[in-house]
């Protein structure tokens, strides 16, 4: 029985080799041809990175103090002329007004 199994294996070996070789050729061919996909993905990554950089710049620009000051002035905010301080400890129950 073992002898017949060994015989079967030896007779099938060339077939296995052929199948594996064909498989390797097919896979290699597929991979070699996927370069276009890689290029496409890298192009997308670059585009998204560039967009990200642009948005980061816009965030920095929008949150700049100069812009905030301008917008505050447009909306009617003004510089405070006086500053009042209120002690918190002890917290006052009533405040006098002038």
């Amino acid at each position, binding site marked *: 029985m073992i002898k017949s199994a060994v015989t079967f294996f030896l007779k099938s070996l060339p077939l296995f080799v052929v199948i594996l070789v064909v498989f390797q050729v097919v896979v*290699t061919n597929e*991979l*070699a041809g*996927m*370069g*276009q996909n*890689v*290029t496409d993905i890298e192009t997308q990554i670059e585009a998204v990175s*560039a967009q990200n*950089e*642009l948005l*980061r*710049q816009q965030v*920095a*620009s929008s*949150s*700049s*103090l*100069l812009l905030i*000051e301008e917008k505050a002035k447009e909306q009617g905010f003004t510089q*405070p002329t006086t*500053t009042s*301080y209120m*002690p918190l400890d002890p917290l006052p129950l009533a405040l006098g007004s002038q």
Partner: protein
Amino acid sequence: MWRSSFIFWLLTLAFVVIDYRLFHWQVLSSDSLRQQAASQYFLEFQLPPTRGSIFDQNGNSLAIHQPASLVYAQPKKIENVKSFAAKISDALGLDEKEVVSTITQPDRFWVALSHKVEQPIVEKLKELNLAGLGFEKEAKRYYPEASMAAHLLGFVGSDERGSDKGYFGLEGYYDRQLVGRAGALRIEKDAKGNPILIGDVSRVEPQHGRSLTLWLDRAVERIVERRLAEGIAKYGAKEGSVIVMDPKTGGILAMATFPNYDPATYSTFPSDMYKNPLVSATYEPGSTFKVLVMSGALEEKLVTPTTTMEETGPVEVGEYAVQTWNNEYHGEITMTKVLERSSNVGMVFVGRKLGKEKLIGFMKQFGFGESTGIDLEEETSPGLRPSQEWREIDLATASFGQGIAVTPIQMVRAVGALANNGALMEPHVVSKIIDESGKSIDIKPKKVRQVISGSTARIITEMMVAAVDNGEAKWAKPAGYRIAGKTGTAQIPVAGHYDKDKTIASFVGFAPADNPKFVMLVTLREPSTSPWGSETAAPLFFTISRDLFAYWGISPQ
């Protein structure tokens, strides 16, 4: 027979010729041919690093990179030169004739048209779909706060190879940290130019530049710059500057000087504006220096706040006579009153008590004559004259801050020691360096040395508080706050003598006096409304202080 020989020698000759050509290709020209072959089946390009950013202490951006491109032309691929030049010059704002002459240069395959073109313009150019027009990523520096802290930041220009390089300020000092290192990618490509996944790949990742976090608070910087600009206009000064420093850490919270420039368009400003005068220009400190001389005499126990001297008139020093700033004399006065009234005669008394060697010694201890070590590129330090060159008049004038040259950063650091229990700190702009992985390197505050004792520091602080409360500038002081400070009015030396009209008005101080949050120096050059520090720099100091108290929520004591 002869035919056989002829054929034999013919074949031998052919063999030799073929051998020689093979030798030529495989040995003599192998390197260049290998490179040519590699360029056909390898893609090779540099992976540029991104320059590091600069943030304030709260993470707000002060300098970042923005996407931009190098716009280039490939003249051999241009179909219609005139039309190409017209469209390009219109989009890029270039002269059309210059564009035509650039793209029609003989034997040129590639010409640069414009560097660092911003993304919106690049998108417009791409829409034109012009043959022979190409783009390459070329990041550009962007300053969201425009010209804020320009001298502190510096700017990014180009080196001799055309690569980005930082100049002046932080961009210059930390250029190697900020610039990073380029990577490289080498990948096998197919006939269409696409990468082959299973081919040869060699990749070196770029090391992006490290970012900097500063001690600077952009809100404080904005307050300081706005008030300084107002002050220069109000007092008719030619120039003005302010430094705000945390005396406990040496961290620079704000640094402003006018006139200034815009680092994004630095080339449109004169180059003599690039240097930060706060660390590179010298001035005579005048009466602000008195607090340091007085603290030295207190430390040596030569005087106390209540030690008295007779101020009866000008004091003779060799062939010279030193008088008070207003030529008024008050008889017996204490050392505290000497500071309150800013008496030059009183300071000559103190200077003589100290003596030349000890005075020079304290000047060195306070850091004069040496660089402060601040992390800005262009710091300089005027040297101190050797003690053997000092005459009696030099000792006298130095005691009230004339005849010596200091930089503003040296002055604010020295007074910062008085606010910090006598400990002199090394000033720093950067508090952290952060690499691309987010790992942060803290730059710890550095104590340089103990100049005076804590008790002397407290005594001189009280004297400075009295100088503010009872001195010439008391009218401008915010009510309810204990501010330690001293006015200064120094004449400007011009061609070997002092100009009688031109002054540098200054005020140096710290607050709150009992637990100082900041030490600040304000200088105004040649104020025209009044030459006196008490009427120009002092009110400006107090105005800025009011805003800072409100910003930091420091209530009156």
